[in-house]
């Protein structure tokens, strides 16, 4: 009977190195368009230093023995990414219809997706938070709350 080969765990340091090369590379490329030498020096130096350190990380990761591998926990990242997407939609909605209309929707939906099923409590939170923001930050302190593009068109 043959045994299945053990699944090799992905070492996220390789992914990190790729991100680092892209990040530092973008800055290095952008720095080449800076005309002033003194102004170009620091970002160029830092970009190169970052890429050198990324290379050191790559070599260190490649040479690390099985027993000494770093543990990285990415479990639950799917849910975290979904939450980030919800935040993105919330930002888009806030930019469109304003904070006061988008926030109750965002709060209710997110609470539901996170497992909250007490609809009364959800409704209270969804309504009271924008109200508190309005009373305290807008009315009392005069802070500017995003009203959205629709409000500007109207």
């Amino acid at each position: 009977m043959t045994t299945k080969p053990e699944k090799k765990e992905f070492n996220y340091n390789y992914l990190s190195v790729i991100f680092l090369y892209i990040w530092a590379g973008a800055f290095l490329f952008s720095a080449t368009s800076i005309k002033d030498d003194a102004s170009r020096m620091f970002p160029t130096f830092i970009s190169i230093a970052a890429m050198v350190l990324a290379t050191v990380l790559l070599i260190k990761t490649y040479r690390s023995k099985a027993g000494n591998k770093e543990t990285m926990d990415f479990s639950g990242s799917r849910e975290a990414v979904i939450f980030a997407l919800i935040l993105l939609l919330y930002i888009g909605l806030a930019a469109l219809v304003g904070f006061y209309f988008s926030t109750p929707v965002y709060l209710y939906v997110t609470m539901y997706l996170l497992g909250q099923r007490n609809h009364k409590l959800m409704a209270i939170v969804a309504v009271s938070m924008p109200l508190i923001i309005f009373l305290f930050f807008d009315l009392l302190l005069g802070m500017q709350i995003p009203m959205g593009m629709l409000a500007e068109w109207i």
Partner: protein
Amino acid sequence: MFLEYVAQALSFTNVLWLTIGSVVGAILGALPGMSADTGIAIFLPLTFNLEPMTGLITLGAIYVTASYGGNITAVLINTPGTSDSLFMTLDGYPMTVRGQGLQAVGITTVSAFIGGIIGSVVLLFIAPPLAQIAVRFGPLELFLTTMMGIVIIVGLSKDGMLKGLISAMLGFLCAEIGLDGITGMTRLNFGINQLYDELPLLPVVLGMFAVSQVMILVAEKRKTIAIGEEAIKGSAIIPFKEQMKMLTTNVWSSIIGTVVGIIPGAGTTVAAGISYNIAKKTDPNPDTFGKGNKRGLACVSAANNGVVGGSLVPLLTLGIPGNGTSALFLGGLLIHGLAPGPKLFSQHASIAYGLIFGILAANFFILLIGMFGAPIYAKITKVPNSILIPVVGAFCILGAYTFRNMAFDMLVILVFGIIGYYMTRANFSMAPFVLAFVLGKNVEIQFRRTMQLLGGNFAETLFRPLPMALLAIDLIFLLSPFWPDFKRWLDRKKNAQAA
């Protein structure tokens, strides 16, 4: 004469506005997205109609309690309300997870109080002579001082120093975006107009710490922040004996905070870093730092609030803001027709000393807020995550917007939230990134000025007592994490030779 100033400072109107400022400051400091800067900026126009002393006392109270308020959320939900409180999360949050959230709030309250009192007393008695020392800091000294903060934080992550250095490099790169501090030309903005000036500080810091933390909470799928049913045990009132044990730590950390606050550009992060490092090295159990060490929490809190008084020393005596928040204070002085400098203490002595006594009094509000408000704040950890996460998320997004009233900043906070999440999961420390980001532009400006000076006169610029002392301190902090390993290597060599 002092009694006269005290009586004026503690009039009914001033006490009323002191109370309002203190409460508002603590709330704003605790909310992710708000800060002392936000509070002072909001209240500046509100103080137009107030007497100068009343207006300045209000702003001072906000400054004091906002610096403290950020500690509460940092300790209880690992979400620093302000970038000043990021060191709080190292030992404060682990205490909360152990069910000692109230104790942690109590420790940070007493330490912040002591730090604030010492900073205020220094401001009161030693302002002019101390400011003379800061005037001697040239570009090289300022460069070495600001590098100190970064070197310290990288050195703290000894087991992951490579990743700490990488994190710091990325923070430096982000700090370079926008206007060049010397030429005033825009660079590295990738064609994005909203990055013409700079990458906005508050959305970046909030994203890295608050939004990423919220994402981690989502990923962990825990029902509440604290582990276990009895998350909050004990009391916020710390026993006298325990307070005495930490008194020495609190006092020297407060002094460090005050002295660092005086140096323009250094700020709370450098002060907190220095005092944390010293506390760790002098502790009999240094390995417990980062895992809920009470001294680790106390020293940072004391240093943070010591900076408040210190940062106002160069502002009130020389007109040089010690940090960004005290720069807003400058606006407050100018609005009321007051010019900072020696004349402030001679021609408007009652206002200058009234402000200082007001700041001294505001520190007592820290005790009230901490002791009576702590159980209320601590209950935050029992709120279900399904409610806390969306609410904190919304506050963060709103906070990002209110910084510059730009919808673009809401995207910035999300992007850096994702980056912060990945960095945390991939074992990259975020503290070096944020520190390098906050200090990066200043480091570059001082570095380039230093290069100009060195090009002119290398020996005279570099080989002076103060720069050499600062350089030595930087090297010590950078190399000290390797000292035990070096000692072990020396011992092995000795033993091998003996054999």
